[in-house]
């Protein structure tokens, strides 16, 4: 009863780093990009280091392959080669991984590290802007405290990237950000370069409770739905307003070129940060991460997405995803799930331990193991292990080389970064974990964790905490 998950906070935000931070239509059309770095963009750069050759491991590539006695070569921040008996480049660090397993770095699609940091005091409670049911204008990254000690305990569990989301108090909670799990003084120096931002939306009990308890809108599920729809309807109008402005501006510039000295420039519409966010969702630049437990509500959300022309990238928590696993697979929607949490509220009452395995079963099923917890993020591998065991009991044989995708390739896909990380393939970021054995065990330990080829954690060399808070 007391463990309250950042409970009603599940939010997704992803921030664009390489692209400018989706400046509203206004910025893209009317004002040229300032020279240099875009505000809020990533400043992360992996330090240069020696090449590393990991030798003779059981390698789960994240593409569904398993290489026994496999070598992985990391060079210049990327996976250079995979195979057997690779040649060691001059000066490379060689790790004998005999008897050990190697996987891509784990990715948590749903975290509140930094926004609900440890210690959980009032001053660090920055995950829910619970003052209005629609706060598409806020960005989780602006709440991230890089000194949260939870980042380094997550690293110990093999986490190399994560999406930090606003909480789930609101229908639309704001933008999420994808971070590399590297120590840094600023969040910008953790920001995953080029990752799209996410939009955190929340179904069901949380928003209606948070506002309904104060006799505010929404207090019912029908109120929730009206809230999402109005927000996207407003975003459509906003896009139209800017289109009109762009047309008027183009006409004005043409007229001026023609020498019409009487032409007056149009007045741009007022920027609305929230509607800018939703407009970027409708343009497909921001990915929708929707906290949603019940199957019937997921179906409603899919209809809303259809009505306004956006795509739901993933349902999060998705306790009832097993009830519509085939539909989710057909529509290309991922489900991010826990292995066994249930019952803490009505919408979690129908939890089953086979949820992950069932969602994974259809050919195009996209199952993701997520945490929403500073404890769970340290043990995504154990959560997956439980799901494998439960799947086996109902006749789904799930090989380790397949299950690892729940923690790597599938979350990478949902975050729009699968072309950069999430699998071990030549040219991809060298985000790699060396495990002491199979990762799917309660006794598993990450021995070494590499991010962009840099050794960020080494279990054989215990180091003092790096968070300033723990000095």
């Amino acid at each position, binding site marked *: 009863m*007391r463990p309250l998950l950042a409970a009603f906070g599940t939010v997704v935000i992803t921030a664009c780093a390489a692209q400018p931070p989706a400046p509203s239509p206004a910025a893209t059309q009317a004002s040229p990009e300032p020279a240099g770095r875009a505000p809020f963009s990533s400043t992360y750069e992996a330090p240069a280091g020696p090449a590393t050759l990991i030798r003779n491991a059981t390698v789960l590539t994240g593409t569904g392959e398993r290489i026994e006695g496999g070598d992985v070569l990391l060079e210049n921040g990327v996976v250079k080669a995979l195979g057997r008996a690779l040649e060691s480049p001059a000066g490379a660090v060689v790790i004998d991984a005999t008897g050990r397993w190697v996987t891509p770095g784990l990715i948590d699609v749903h975290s509140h590290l930094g926004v609900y940091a*440890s210690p959980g005091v009032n001053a660090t409670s920055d995950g829910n802007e619970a003052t209005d049911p629609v706060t598409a204008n806020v960005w989780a990254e602006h709440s991230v405290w890089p000194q949260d000690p*939870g980042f380094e305990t997550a690293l110990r569990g093999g986490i190399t990237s994560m999406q930090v989301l606003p909480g789930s108090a609101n229908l639309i909670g704001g933008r999420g950000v994808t971070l590399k799990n590297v120590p840094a003084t600023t969040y910008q120096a953790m920001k995953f370069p080029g990752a799209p931002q996410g939009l955190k939306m929340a179904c069901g009990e949380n928003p209606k409770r948070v506002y309904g308890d104060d006799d505010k809108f929404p207090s019912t599920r029908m109120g929730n739905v009206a809230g999402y729809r109005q927000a996207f309807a407003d975003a459509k109008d906003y896009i139209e307003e800017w289109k009109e402005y762009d047309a008027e501006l183009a006409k004005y510039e043409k007229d001026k070129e023609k020498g019409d000295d009487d032409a007056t420039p149009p007045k741009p519409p007022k920027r609305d940060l929230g509607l800018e966010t939703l407009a970027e969702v409708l343009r497909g630049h921001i990915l929708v991460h929707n906290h949603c437990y019940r199957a019937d509500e997921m179906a409603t959300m899919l209809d809303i997405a259809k009505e306004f022309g956006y795509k739901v990238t993933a349902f999060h928590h998705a306790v009832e995803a097993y009830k519509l696993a085939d539909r989710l697979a057909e529509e290309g929607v991922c489900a991010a799930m826990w292995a066994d949490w249930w019952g803490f509220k009505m919408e979690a009452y129908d939890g089953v331990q086979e949820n992950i395995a069932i969602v994974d079963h259809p050919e195009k099923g996209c199952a993701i193991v997520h945490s929403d917890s500073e404890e769970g993020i340290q043990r995504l591998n154990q959560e997956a292990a439980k799901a494998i065991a439960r799947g086996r009991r109902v006749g789904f044989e799930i090989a380790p080389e397949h299950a690892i995708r729940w923690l790597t390739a599938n979350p990478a896909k949902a975050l729009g970064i699968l072309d950069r990380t999430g699998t071990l393939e030549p040219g991809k970021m060298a985000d790699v974990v060396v495990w002491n054995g199979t990762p799917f065990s309660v006794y598993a330990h990450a021995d070494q964790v590499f991010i962009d080829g840099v050794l960020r954690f080494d279990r054989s060399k215990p180091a003092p905490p790096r968070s300033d808070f723990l000095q």
Partner: protein
Amino acid sequence: MKARCLMVLLVALATGPAGAQSLFIHGARVHTAGSAGTLGNADIVVEDGRIAAVGPGLAAPPGATVVEANGRPVTPGFFGGLTQVGLEEVSQEEDTVDSELSFKAPAWQHMWRPEFDVTNAFNARSIVLPVARIEGITWAMLAPEPDDSLVAGQGSAVTLDGRFDAAFDGSRSLFVNWGSAAHGASGGSRAAQTMLFDQAIRESKETGAVGPAALLLPEGRAVLRRYLGGGRVVFFVERAADIRQVVRYAKSHGMKPVIAGGAEAWIVARELAEADVPVILNALEDLPQDFDRLGSRLDNAKLLHEAGVRIAFTWDESHNVRKNRQLAGNAVANGLPWEAGLAAMTASPAAIFGIGADHGRIEAGQSADLVLWSGDPLEVTSIADQVWIAGAPVPMRSRQTALRDKYVERVKAGTAR
């Protein structure tokens, strides 16, 4: 003769609703959690709900149900921790939650109600029970949750087999919150916690009318008095300095303290061992969740065990008490010897809560609360193949398995939509 019949009847009732046929488990790897340790290839004989014999080469009693273990492990039934199992159906639906007492009085009018005993609210037919017991969790400690008082009330250990009279004799304990968790209930300072306790102890010895600023009613006085005479008191306390103070305070006033939480217990491990004070901890805790837990670390269990402190595990989630087993596995992964991890799920909590003579070990005379596992009992990929409580097989079904069976068929047919 009459008396004897009555005795037989009582025994029959005590063995549970399913009755208890003789049982013979053949060829198991038996983790006794007792002095015999682990027996590689052993048999277990169960009669009248109790373990009659354990060891290699035993004979099945006539008419016994024979279970072939084929080398699979058998353990005593696992402990679910300090929980609200059977006290709440859905945590966020207040009307389904019976674990806390709050009269919403302003702080200066808070009274202590140690006579509040959540055992009385236990629902043996709760939907939550089968979910726990089919995973090998056969018993748990009911813990009240404090709201507007340092003293949360009392709770008992219960069997999870579904019988109505589920509480174990001799397990009743008082629960007290300490440190920052009780900040609001102690006027905003933990310094007031001993101050208020001093007042309550003084009141417990009074017999006159209840005064205007009293903490206790006459019923509460009697209950507190009982605990001051050697009763078991579970203190939820995390900070090392507070743990030391609680232990000294409790002992000096005749209470038998148990530390729950104990994130920083490792710092005072030696003192806890010397005072023979057990710790019930969350072995997954490694973050400074608050300023009482700056010293959290994953090897807390290991360090306490090495110092000679008796430990058990608890996990703050009534619906997911089955995860307590994962705590034990993680403690072992972080240095606790495997046998000690097993003991912390079985014999140790039974001893801590006064039921060790009947529960927690696979030894002749103990209640036959047994779990046959598919593999290493502390490994997350292992599953309880069969559970027995008081010798009776637990039907391996829950609302969750019913939902699973319904929808697995659909997804296999491609119609889950």
